[in-house]
């Protein structure tokens, strides 16, 4: 019993001295702190931070919207008219839809990378931008659509018109099947170019 | 022991309890028993030398839809290193299962969770309180027909 008492005292003092030696040694180890706003670490190539959408390449396929587990992406598309030329993506795919709404609520985003994987044209991707805090939550709702409000309106109106015409045509065609054929070609104007 | 032998043994002991036993054609073999026998079967398989199921891995409550709830016991034996999946099905309007929390202490919190989220009542549970949801929450969220309440204590729920 008495022996244990002395051994305990010895062990305590000895282990304290060992600990003190280690911490003292670390006084001379260079610090690992990165002085953040002054020094910024280089992020690796695959860093997953803010989402970015390259609208030139977006074909409005809604794959990313479906893949998102937190529903932070909202896309609305409008069918283009057969005569419209929306151009092609950089991968050579022909665009067929007007993307009238492409909102990402980055406040909701969980940076899981699931939306990037299914994108057929690789237009949605994660960038290495990580400094995007805002004072107002609404500023975190990012609009990626390149069309102006007016253009969206026209595109929508035209699509609706076209739809109507198509429906009329169909009806007419149906009627025509019964009666004499009447053709009414639709008057069209080129759509406003997105700036 | 293989699952087949374990199931046979339980069948032998409780011929009336076993409703269904499947070892082939499924990913995990399971045995389905009548709910009122759960505690008896549990204490039998724990105390039997050859079975020795002393480790309850998991206890899950399930809403099968169609008006039935289920409880699944995934049990393991530390001694013999074999597993058993025990299934129980009860009607939703009378979701009562005998508690096994005195047989495996693990079941205590798991049964509370199953009661909390699924609304299965475990008869004979020593501490039948909610565990994850607030004590005054209404309804059991994991049921398939659960509707999110609009207000909880005056606070809007889907904010």
């Amino acid at each position, binding site marked *: 019993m008495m022996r244990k008492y002395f051994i305990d005292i010895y062990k305590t003092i000895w282990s304290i001295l060992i600990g003190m030696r280690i911490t003292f040694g670390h006084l001379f180890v260079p610090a690992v702190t990165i002085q953040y706003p002054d020094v910024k670490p280089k992020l690796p190539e695959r860093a997953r931070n803010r989402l970015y959408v390259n609208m030139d390449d977006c074909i409005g396929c809604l794959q990313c919207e479906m893949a998102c587990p937190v529903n932070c992406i909202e896309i609305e598309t409008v069918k283009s008219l057969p005569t419209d030329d929306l151009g092609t993506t950089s991968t050579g795919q022909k665009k067929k839809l007007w993307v009238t709404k492409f909102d990402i609520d980055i406040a909701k985003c969980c940076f899981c990378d699931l939306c990037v994987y299914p994108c057929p044209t690789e237009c949605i991707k994660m960038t290495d931008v990580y400094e995007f805090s805002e004072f107002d939550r609404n500023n975190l709702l990012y609009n990626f659509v390149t069309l102006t409000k007016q253009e969206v309106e026209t595109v929508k109106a035209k699509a609706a018109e076209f739809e109507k015409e198509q429906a009329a045509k169909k009806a007419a065609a149906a009627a025509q099947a019964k009666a004499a054929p009447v053709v009414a070609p639709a008057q069209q104007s080129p759509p406003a170019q997105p700036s | 022991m293989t699952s087949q032998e374990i199931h046979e043994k339980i069948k032998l002991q409780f011929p009336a309890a076993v409703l269904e036993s499947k070892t082939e054609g499924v*990913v995990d073999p399971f045995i389905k028993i009548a709910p009122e026998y759960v505690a008896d079967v549990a204490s039998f398989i724990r105390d039997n030398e050859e079975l020795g199921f002393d480790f309850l891995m998991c206890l899950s409550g399930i809403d099968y839809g169609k008006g039935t709830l289920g409880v699944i016991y995934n049990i393991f034996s530390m001694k013999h290193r074999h597993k058993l999946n025990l299934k129980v099905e009860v009607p939703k309007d009378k979701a009562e299962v005998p508690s096994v929390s005195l047989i495996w202490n693990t079941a205590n919190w798991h049964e509370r969770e199953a009661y909390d989220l699924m609304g299965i009542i475990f008869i004979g549970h020593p501490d039948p309180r909610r565990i994850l949801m607030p004590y005054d929450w209404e309804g059991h969220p994991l049921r398939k027909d659960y509707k999110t309440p609009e207000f909880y204590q005056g606070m809007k729920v889907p904010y």
Partner: protein
Amino acid sequence: MAEISEEIIKTSTGTTLRHEEMVINMGPQHPSTHGVLRLEVVVDGEIVIDVIPHIGYLHRCFEKHAESMTNYQQVVPYVDRMDYCAAMNMDFGYVLAVEKLLGIQVPERVEYIRVIMAELQRIASHLIAAGTYGLDIGAFTPFLYMFRERERILDLFEMTCGARLLYNYMWVGGVSHDLPPGFIDKAKDFCQYFRPKIKEYNDLLSYNEIFIKRTANVGILPKDVAISYGISGPVLRGSGVNFDLRRDDPYSIYHKFDWQPEIGKGEVGTVGDCWDRYMVRMREMEQSINIVEQALNQIPEGNIASAIPKRIRPNPGDVYVRTESARGELGFYVISDGSGKPYRIKARSPSFVNLSVIPEISRGGMIADLVAIAGSLDIVLGEVDR
């Protein structure tokens, strides 16, 4: 609710003293509950009479979320957030469950990558566990040393998948990215760098006599109680049960490596005390380093994307798959109804089960012991409450 006993004591001078137990709420906001855990503690002075844990402050109903997803893959980010200190291990368990349900085999390279990641994550998680345990006991410095080491592991992860905490790296049928160029060398460097560090921590903290006095013979969890409570992982091994799912219920390719589980031996106290639980983690880090090094040396070349299914539609059925996460047995019970959506996912989280033993082993100790016990169980509240 806690019951308080009250008694009147007559002193020798004839006056009476009222003697009453006190209820203290430890948490939900308390520095040593490792999150939002509330322990309702009945104390008699400094002696703990009873502990009643109240959980659920971090409850997000992950299981309900999982049911409302459109496919199995979308669940992975949610699984990540269960145990945010060991997200890779969480992913691993979930994808193994879904793969078993689907009945698919992943390429060998993927298996190796997964094991490397899971073991690195285990080291990172144990570093947090040991560091915060030192913090609970009052030693601040080891905590920061360990976080520095963890940072290097996170750098490796960031290099691989771009995220530092919640990886969403393991996908059903594979992994999201192949190893980046230079990863293997960097990981080997880390292994070499890390080995001597463990000794330094042992000198600084583990074998410090004050630390031993605080943790040895405290919160003793005997074998049979541990098994009855379904305790798993380092806590179970700390009680002297030689049981590790990586060896005893092998999954993935753990059988290919040369390593052994560490168990508590009661070197400085009784088997199953806080020090044993802590020390099992310290030693497990060394074993994990062994596994990582072997895996890095053996990893084959190959295509990793081949097994990722385009659509995940398992046949109707259910499966319970358990893996050894950093905190113990992580089980996923998955039911499929044949559609692309999971019908029901139940997670058996190790922290949830390990926490339930806390009233059993902390009665009769002091408040400081309660802190030591809670720390040695190494709970992550994200996983307890899910």
